């Protein structure tokens, strides 16, 4: 019962066919990224090692998502689903860390405790 004329559905996902060259290009980019992140790990960048490693991983992920998983050619709902999942993961990590990292702030007073003498003069 195909009523295409009555309610021609604007499909979420286009049937775009990605050229082989694009796939191969992304493949090489991913390989280079892997080599790069491995190489950088052997260089002492201090705290930045982690940042660089994660940044490269995120770029690789974006390439896989956009091209191999066709998200570049999809409409908005897919992107919302992906972003929502990461946002919720972010909530879990952030608020859990907010507890775990601040347990001993009594020993190192919180930044705003400098205000306490002034507040006590007000009240």
């Amino acid at each position: 019962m195909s009523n295409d004329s009555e309610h021609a559905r604007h499909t979420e996902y286009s049937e775009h066919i990605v050229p082989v060259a694009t796939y191969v290009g992304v493949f090489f980019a991913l390989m280079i990224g892997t080599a790069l992140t491995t190489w950088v790990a052997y260089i002492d960048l201090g705290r930045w090692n982690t940042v660089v490693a994660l940044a490269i991983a995120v770029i690789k992920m974006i390439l896989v998502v956009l091209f191999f998983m066709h998200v570049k050619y999809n409409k908005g709902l897919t992107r919302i689903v992906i972003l929502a999942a990461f946002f919720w993961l972010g909530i879990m990590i952030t608020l859990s860390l907010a507890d775990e990292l601040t347990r001993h702030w009594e020993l190192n007073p919180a930044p705003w405790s400098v205000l306490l003498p002034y507040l006590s003069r007000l009240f």
Partner: protein
Amino acid sequence: MSEMAAHSAHPQGFAHQFEDVGQQRDAGRLGMWIFLATEILFFGGLFTAFIIYRALHLPAFIAGSHQLEVQFGATNTAVLICSSLTMALAIRSAQVGKPRGTIIFWLVLTMLFGAAFLGIKLHYEWLRDYREGLVPGFGFNVAKYTPGVEMFFCFYFFMTGLHALHMVAGIGVLTVLIIMAARNAFSSEYYAPLEISGLYWHFVDIVWIFLFSLLYLIGGRYAQ
């Protein structure tokens, strides 16, 4: 089934709860993406815990990470990237109407890369780790390694183990797809199972990309 209009030649694989094939495709893909979102949260629990403990016990985690061999992790990363390429090409060959032999060729290659990943993991990494007393709960060498290192290896095995389970499931799915392709189930009109399985396979690849960076490379390797 009563008043439905006389069925003209049905599109391949059409399911009757839908109005048309476009709606069915949309629904299938949205469904798989939502499933992948649940997987992000599922693995995410482990990543959350890992991030917390790494923040609290960084030296121990670096010491643990240095027990892993980067070349195997990097090789496995490359292997999975190859498998993602071949998976994408398998779907593409269905999209452009290639014969089933071509589709099967790319699917088999994907499966081989997946199997290679698991083989390298099992033989060169996990087996060696076991022999060196690095597997918590299975003769962990508490004399040689600190509790923090044991914690790191809990995460290592839980995370790569869960990932490996997903790989095995993916290989199972590929097997089914190969059988379907052999029975001429796919065409340029109907390749939804390939595409949806491809999304799953690429997701498992992405998880590994992060596992490699977090487990093998944290804190850098320059201090070895």
